[in-house]
């Protein structure tokens, strides 16, 4: 099976300061990876704020242009010349955003986005056909058109809204779903439903998912492969469980050590890992050596 998405040496810099200052902030530095090489998978991008993960997602979606490098989806570049090419791309690649309450216009009903997606991407014009397509997608996420029809965003919970957003993204039968922190703003009791849903998308519907998060625990739960980013650079990449069970890069180790959980309940649970922090800062300052193979088939950026 040919690779679905290939990111090759992509960098993105933003000019900061005035127009003439010439200074730049580097959001993403030389990122290369591929998704979907061996069938449907969940590929996770882990990073903190400022790691560049959202910028990377925007570039894959075609909302931003890389400063250098290219992104290729199904053999074709991701930047489009005209509207029909763009629509063809959007039919295959769909996003799910972080804040379900912002993803819908608070003054408008939510089914409107579902209807528009069905109309544009499935090329349906008959009202009954559009509604059937909407209902089918909603059933996939455990909801139904009867429940959602005519509702405004504030009438639904965060979990429901996020499921509607996923249903909308599924209507054109996309090959790739890019979920940017889809559960960080959803309540704890509703979160697992969405995370389980992402698993189902891969298993039952054959959709590749790029799952962007800062939460290592959910990443462990559903990812096949993952990639850890630190200030725009990929520091470790490879099989998910292997990396999270035994992280090798100092920053990955620091992340894992900072995760709170009931297991670490105790008086020293909040003790700072000063040595790990120092090691991870040192790794940042070290010259860029590129990714080299590590254990268990992973790629590691050595200091």
């Amino acid at each position, binding site marked *: 099976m040919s690779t679905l998405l290939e990111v090759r040496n992509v960098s993105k810099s933003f000019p900061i300061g005035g127009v003439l200052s010439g200074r730049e902030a580097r959001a993403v530095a030389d990122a290369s990876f591929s998704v979907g090489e061996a069938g449907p998978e969940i590929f996770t991008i882990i990073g*903190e*704020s400022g790691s560049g993960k959202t910028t990377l997602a925007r570039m894959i979606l075609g909302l931003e242009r890389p400063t250098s490098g290219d992104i290729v989806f199904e053999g074709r570049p991701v930047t489009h010349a005209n509207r029909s090419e763009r629509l063809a791309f959007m039919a295959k690649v769909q996003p799910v955003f972080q804040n379900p309450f912002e993803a819908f216009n608070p003054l408008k009903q939510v089914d409107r986005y579902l209807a528009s997606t069905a109309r544009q991407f499935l090329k349906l014009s008959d009202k009954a056909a559009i509604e059937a397509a909407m209902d089918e997608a909603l059933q996939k996420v455990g909801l139904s058109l009867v429940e959602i029809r005519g509702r405004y965003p504030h009438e*639904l*919970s*965060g*979990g*429901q809204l996020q499921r509607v957003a996923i249903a909308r993204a599924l209507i054109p039968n996309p090959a790739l779903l890019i979920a940017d922190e889809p559960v960080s703003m959803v*309540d*704890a*009791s*509703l*979160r*697992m*439903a969405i*995370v*389980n849903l992402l698993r189902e998308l891969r298993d039952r519907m054959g959709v590749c998912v790029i799952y962007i998060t*800062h939460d*290592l*625990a*959910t990443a*462990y*739960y559903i990812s096949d492969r993952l990639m850890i980013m630190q200030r725009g650079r990929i520091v470790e990449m490879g099989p998910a*469980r292997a990396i*999270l*069970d035994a992280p090798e890069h100092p920053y990955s180790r*620091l*992340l*894992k050590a*900072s*995760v*709170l*959980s*009931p*297991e*670490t*309940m*105790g008086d020293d*649970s*909040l*003790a*700072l890992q000063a040595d790990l*922090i120092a090691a991870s800062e040192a790794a940042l300052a070290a010259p860029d050596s590129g990714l080299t193979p590590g254990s268990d088939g992973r790629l590691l950026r050595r200091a």
Partner: protein
Amino acid sequence: MTDILTVEDLKAYYLMNYFGVNREVRAVDGISMSIARNEIYGIAGESSSGKTSLIKVLAAATRPPLKIVGGSALYHFKSGDIDIAKASERELEAIRWRNLSYIMQGSMSVLNPLRKVGRIFEDFAARPLGLSGGAFRQRVVEHLERLKLSPQLLNAYPHELSGGMRQRVTIGLATVCNPEFIIADEPTTALDVVVQKDVLSLVKRLQTEFGSSIVFVTHDMAVHASIADRVGIIYAGRLVEEAPTRTLFAAPKHPYTAHLVASLPRIGDTGQRPALEGRPPSLANPPAGCRFHPRCPLALDKCKTEVPPLELVAPGQRSACWRWADVRPIVPAPAKVAEAVR
């Protein structure tokens, strides 16, 4: 008296009359609890559970349309007792910042971008402390150093600091007068995991170094596990369970708590995690009887009509469930935790 706060049947509603539409949102509906001195009490609940309204009441920060309609929230400060529900604005002003401090949600964004941090400290704390000029600055620097923050911060503008740094500044600001009682509303929600740990250890230090009692509100159970001594679970405006942290995780006695604890995924465990059906009820129109019954796997007919009282079911543990004895942890607790409880 070891308790610093005694809350008795507190009720606070949002009363709104807008264009003829009358809405009564029962955000806090009969909550009774007490908080001891020098303890960190965690309040867990989801969005629209009423927890933010509860702490607004406890922090004496209610504004219309939120109104206290019944009950009492009695503070036992060293300087005297004061009932928030009945106190006058003057009495409340006297305790704000000095005895009682409130770290609001999204604190990182509430610092005035046009003022240096040092000046912001002056704006907030000079009057309550009753100091000025050199003595004031001295006190602020000492305070920051005790919190292991660099006094250099005082010369920076808020936008020059990172989110985590700003949150630490806000915590420093809220505690400079050494209040006996601190309320923190989701202080680490928007922070990175590494920074979160640091901020939490800062909060813990507040308790150990200054002896303050802290009410820590967050929906993240993992944070409660790391920092809280006791945890109270709020659902739809009511307190449904309260227990020491380890007990809560090892042996929850309310179905909602059992679900909250079970839905925490952990690294190293890929077992299927359960999801809770339905959604939290609207506080304008809550279900009759036990408010959790539409989603509860253990619900009886009795639960639909009669409200279960919050009762002591084990030493230090209260639960509001008719079937508390039947509640089992959905996923076994980690060995270390279960051991400690036994």
